[in-house]
């Protein structure tokens, strides 16, 4: 066993210093307030500022490997410093949902990669993911959006939900049914130009009060056949790889990093009071923080275990769902614990002078349900664990998907 990441050797201080100055010089000042989770700017001018920032980074040669067409990998220590400093900058350096990158890497054509990767890296192309549907939840096998072949094109009709960045997106990574058969076969992955006629993006205001997700409607939207990713009918495989990555990603978010949840809660409990004394002196508070901190550490270890299994080809269908449930429920409980620590102070939110950290905990609490519902609800994840992981009998389906009415 070995989980030691080699420390960054001497000789990289210059790289870090230069980078840091570059970021300081080019980082835009946004009107948009940033919050926890996958959040999206609510103003077009902020999006433009961000595009400029990303382009400046790219032009200066500050490029992350994952958006690179080059097969030669950059210096890994520089890459790590780049990730650290861009993360610490406090503004997004990836615009849109980058999930399509993995799909193009493994299933795209050279031409597709040459077209989209550099534009993505430059902040020129913002992508959105068009997977979830209102009636299918995260059951991708029952997608209803259809793409019908018409000559050299496909005509798309249907609706997607839970799409982040769609309101600013240039391209969409779309899954649609090209064969009218049930289940996984007959699903195809597409590159969709979001500016095509018939694409209607409706931003959704969420319970957080912010607008981070969209509904997207397609009314006879035309896509050139050349924009299929992989082969027609292969969309399930294409998406499977991407989704596994997303679930791992979701599972990994929030853990580690400079914001260890255990330490955050300790600091909050030191600042909060309970029955006239510091809350950190309360045995019940200590036990709850100890429990959440332990589970937060375990989240990291589950990730290390899964990464190891991936390398050894031992991933089971239960692994990604386990990581997703673990992260999203721990995240929710952590925010609930924080609100409880705040006590009545939790009543004052963003914009109020009494609000702790300008209401970050309340926003994080409200947003937490995005993680337990989106990307495959935790109920679906438990089905996957039981049925595909443990081999228990599948739930019977109803008579047929077409017998039920679409609803949202």
């Amino acid at each position: 066993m070995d989980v030691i990441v080699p420390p960054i050797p001497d000789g990289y201080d210059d790289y870090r210093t230069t980078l840091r100055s570059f970021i300081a010089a080019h980082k835009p000042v946004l009107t948009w307030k940033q919050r926890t989770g996958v959040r999206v700017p609510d103003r077009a001018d902020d999006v433009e500022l961000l595009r400029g920032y990303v382009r400046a980074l790219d032009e200066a040669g500050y490029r992350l490997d994952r958006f690179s067409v080059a097969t030669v990998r950059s210096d890994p220590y520089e890459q790590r410093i780049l990730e650290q400093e861009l993360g610490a900058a406090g503004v997004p350096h990836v615009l849109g949902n980058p999930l399509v990158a993995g799909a193009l890497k493994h299933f795209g054509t050279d031409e597709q990669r040459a077209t989209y990767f550099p534009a993505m890296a430059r902040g020129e192309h913002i992508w959105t993911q068009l997977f979830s549907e209102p009636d299918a939840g995260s059951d991708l096998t029952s997608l209803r959006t259809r793409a019908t072949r018409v000559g050299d094109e496909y005509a798309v009709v249907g609706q997607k939900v839970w799409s982040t960045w769609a309101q600013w997106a240039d391209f969409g990574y779309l899954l649609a049914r090209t064969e009218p058969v049930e289940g996984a076969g007959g699903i195809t992955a597409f590159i969709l130009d979001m500016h095509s006629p018939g694409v209607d993006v409706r931003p959704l205001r969420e319970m957080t009060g912010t607008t981070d997700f969209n509904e997207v409607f397609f009314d006879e939207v035309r896509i050139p056949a050349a924009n299929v990713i992989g082969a027609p009918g292969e969309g399930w495989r294409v998406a499977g790889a991407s989704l596994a990555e997303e679930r791992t990603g979701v599972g990994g978010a929030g853990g580690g990093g400079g914001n260890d949840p255990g330490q955050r809660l300790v600091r909050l409990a030191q600042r909060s009071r309970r029955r006239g004394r510091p809350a950190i002196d309360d045995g019940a508070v200590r036990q709850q923080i100890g429990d959440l901190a332990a589970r937060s550490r375990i989240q990291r270890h589950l990730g290390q275990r899964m990464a190891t299994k991936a390398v050894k080809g031992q991933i089971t269908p239960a692994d990604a769902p386990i990581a997703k449930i673990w992260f999203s429920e721990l995240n929710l409980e952590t925010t609930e614990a924080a609100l409880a620590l705040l006590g009545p102070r939790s009543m004052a939110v963003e914009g109020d002078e009494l609000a702790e950290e300008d209401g970050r905990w309340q926003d994080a609490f409200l947003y937490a349900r995005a993680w337990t519902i989106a990307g495959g609800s935790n109920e679906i994840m438990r089905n996957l664990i039981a049925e595909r992981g443990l081999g228990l009998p599948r739930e019977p389906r109803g008579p047929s998907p077409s017998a039920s009415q679409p609803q949202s």
Partner: protein
Amino acid sequence: AVDFGFGEDQELLRAATRRFLAEHQSLADTRRSIEAPDVFDADLWRQGAALGWTAMLIPTERGGGSITEQPLVDLVVLAEELGRTLHPGPFVPCNVVAGAVARFGTEAQAAESLPRLASGEATAAWCLSGDGSPEPSSVEVRAVPAGDGGWRLDGVARYVQAAENASVLLVVANDPDGAVTSFLVPSPSPGLSARTLSGLDVTRRFAEVRFEGVTVQSAHSLSGGQDAVDYCVALATVLQSAESVGAADVLFEATVDYLKQRVQFGRTIGSFQAIKHRLANLLLRLEAMRAAAHYAALALGDDLDDAAEAVATAGAYVDDAFAFICGEALQLHGGIGFTWEHDVHLFTRRAKVNQVLYGDGAWHRERLVQLLEDAVAIGTGTEG
């Protein structure tokens, strides 16, 4: 004879209240009000008052009057119904202040404030403490004797519901000897100011209230000292618990209905056993909330021996269960429940605030353990 249900008159009160609210202050109306500059509608409040919303704890001769011999149980009926629409009005503070004045106020105070509260012409706010907790050490208003036999109040009370509309504030303050007194302070008064908070519960308004040399006459203090504060906390706990019961009830019903309709994987979601068991668990909690809230009202109103334990039990259980039900309702609704347009977040916000108002669950559990320790110390079993 054990009768743990509501009487006929109370059921009539419930039906009348529900009808009125459906017509004038439905959940949809509450939702509309949250975008308004103020959630309070003085006209509707007077109409509600005419239906007895603030009358139960006020004697008949002061313009009040209860439906039955158990005014607090009558109030529970109202609180449940108001809870069902997430009513934005100052129901809890008005009744807490009315109850406190009726019990610990002078004749003059009663004559002055109760008729106006009963008619709905005036509303009241309750300034409990500086951090919203009922802990005595949390009181941040100091009362210093003024030359004329009156008092001068300085300090701050926070998380005060509906302070901006109130004509009268009930203010908990510490005097220089450390004794606690509740004062009735008319609003507006010189030196008194209220700032409305950006709040988590968007259906109600809470304020930070500042006292800068506010003078009150001696005649404006309630008797009872800490007992009066404890009584107010108990009243607030019972009424808020009942409100939470009503809110949880309507949300639970809506969730069950939704899951009976909504189809996924070609089946109604409510046909999935894992979902069914979770709904069963929610009903379990809802029934427990109801049992706890009802008994607390009965015990506090009738001054039963175990009134303190009963109130602590409601405080320990009800609002945490309400918040749990909201969380499950949201999860079971899926994506639609996550949107601003869906009502589930309004319930969630209400629940999160009820959890921490007037003593959170932890505070009431601690209180219950203290009562148990007392009982153990004096060897009181529940035998016999």
